[in-house]
């Protein structure tokens, strides 16, 4: 059973602006997939659709999103069981979306709300085991020491890791991360991406992460889905996304997707190769293959 199946999803904002244009995608359990694309290419919109936070257009024929074999939205309607399916999806946002005035512990405990009786949630009665689970999750992401602090006192990187801890406490099988590192400095970005990778590798959680820069996709995600104007224009191994190929996909807009270290201009590959780390060099032959994927 696939972790996520997106079928012919289209989303129109206003009269004709297509944020998503007939997007189909299958992600298997245990994958770590990057979604890349310039701003406005539909990455965040796609993630919000998969999480069932917004509904797609109503179209003829089947279109919708299935998560873990259950429908979360179907033909422009959030499914009746979406609330239940959401419990298995942890979402991580660019702006962390923690409640800043609550303690880190309370923020992480929110993750158990979906599976405890509602009245316990209303009264804030969490069991000792649930609190221990929250502590274990905070330990896992490396910010156990902050447990009693208000979320607002944490740095951006720490807040994002608290958000990951919340998803862990949720015991979700899938984590959707919507530009989790876009507001972070490079060191925090690296730590957040490493946390996501360890969650993927050690806990077997499927991770879909949208990224503004392709560099992190090379380093952390075996598979990349590239979007442009709401369409999937590439879906395959991240290795194949050389700057030259990106240029082919995005034209001049590709500059925006690459951080300094791997930037190159197509005519001078040899010079760029000298700067790039060897593990990320891709033979030209593979590039052609990738196009046909």
């Amino acid at each position, binding site marked *: 059973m696939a972790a996520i199946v997106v079928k012919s999803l289209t989303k129109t904002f206003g009269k004709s602006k297509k944020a998503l244009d007939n997007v189909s995608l299958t992600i298997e359990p245990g994958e770590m997939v990057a979604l890349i694309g310039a701003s406005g290419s539909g990455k965040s919109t796609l993630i919000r659709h998969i999480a069932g936070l917004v509904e797609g257009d109503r179209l003829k024929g089947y279109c919708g999103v299935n998560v873990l074999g259950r429908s979360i939205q179907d033909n422009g309607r959030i499914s009746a069981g979406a609330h239940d399916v959401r419990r298995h999806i942890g979402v991580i946002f660019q702006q962390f979306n923690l*409640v800043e005035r609550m303690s880190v512990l309370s923020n992480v405990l929110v993750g158990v709300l979906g599976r405890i009786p509602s009245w316990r*949630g209303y009264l804030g009665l969490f069991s000792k085991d649930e609190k221990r689970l929250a502590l274990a999750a905070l330990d896992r992401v490396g910010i156990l020491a902050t447990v009693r602090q208000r979320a607002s006192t944490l740095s951006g990187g720490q807040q994002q890791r608290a958000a990951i801890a919340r998803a862990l406490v949720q015991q979700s099988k899938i984590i959707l991360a919507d530009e989790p590192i876009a507001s972070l400095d490079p060191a925090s970005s690296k730590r957040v991406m490493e946390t996501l990778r360890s969650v993927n590798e050690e806990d077997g959680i499927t991770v879909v992460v949208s990224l503004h820069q392709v560099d992190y996709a090379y380093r952390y995600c075996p598979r990349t889905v590239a979007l442009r104007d709401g369409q999937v224009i590439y879906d395959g191994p991240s290795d194949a996304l050389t700057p030259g190929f990106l240029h082919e996909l995005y034209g001049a807009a590709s500059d925006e997707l690459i951080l300094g270290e791997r930037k190159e201009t197509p005519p001078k590959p040899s010079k760029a190769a000298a700067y790039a780390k060897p593990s990320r060099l891709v033979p030209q032959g593979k590039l052609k293959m990738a196009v046909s994927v």
Partner: protein
Amino acid sequence: MADLATKAQTMDLPKADLKRSSLTLGIWAILAIALMWSWEGADMRPLALYKDAANMAAFVDGFFPPNFYEWPTLLQEMIITVQIAIWGTILSVICAVPFGILSSENMVPWWVWQPVRRLMDSFRAINEIVFAMLFVVAVGLGPFAGVLALWIHTTGVLAKLFSEAVEAIDPQPVEGIKATGADKIQQVIYGVIPQVMPLWISYSLYRFESNVRSATVLGIVGAGGIGMILWEQIRGFDYAGTAATLIVIVASVTLIDVISQRLRKMVT
């Protein structure tokens, strides 16, 4: 410097925008017309202040020196007044939480917030004194009628203030909680209330201050508190006693305002 002065002689202000200046003129004209129109209706007789000056001086003279002969009763009634305000405020805060959320545009569909808001409008539109008169008939003379009056009126006020705070929240944390599979009420408890709590506490304390002030007159219609004494004294031409009562009211209200302001500063 000299250069600037020479240059200055050649400068000219850009022409004022005709539309803007005529608008300003229009607003002043409307204000002037409104004042003239209300003169008759409001029975404005500034000359009376001058003509009856001697009369008024004699009247004011009656207030001095204040006569505290009734002070144990005064103090007791003032405490009752504050107690009325405490209960009236607490009950209305409890009710204003659900009503406030149900009248927030970003929390519920329009067919919920519209009727709830209109109901709150009517709670607010009717003065505490009017409610107090009605409740005196319903539950009899005494402080309980005052508590009920403050409760209804303050619920209307606080629900509006609370909902304004709710409408100004950051929606992102709420979405974060929604995404964990929490239900609607849990989204409010964990996502909305922590964000609005400081404002809500501040508004509630402020309303407590106002309720102490309002409660001082509830007694006039028989709804308990110091207002009852005040009314008796004024009707009995006991102006020295009235002055004492007023001093007690001013002192208590000031004291409570100061304390409450301190508390409000602490929470926000």
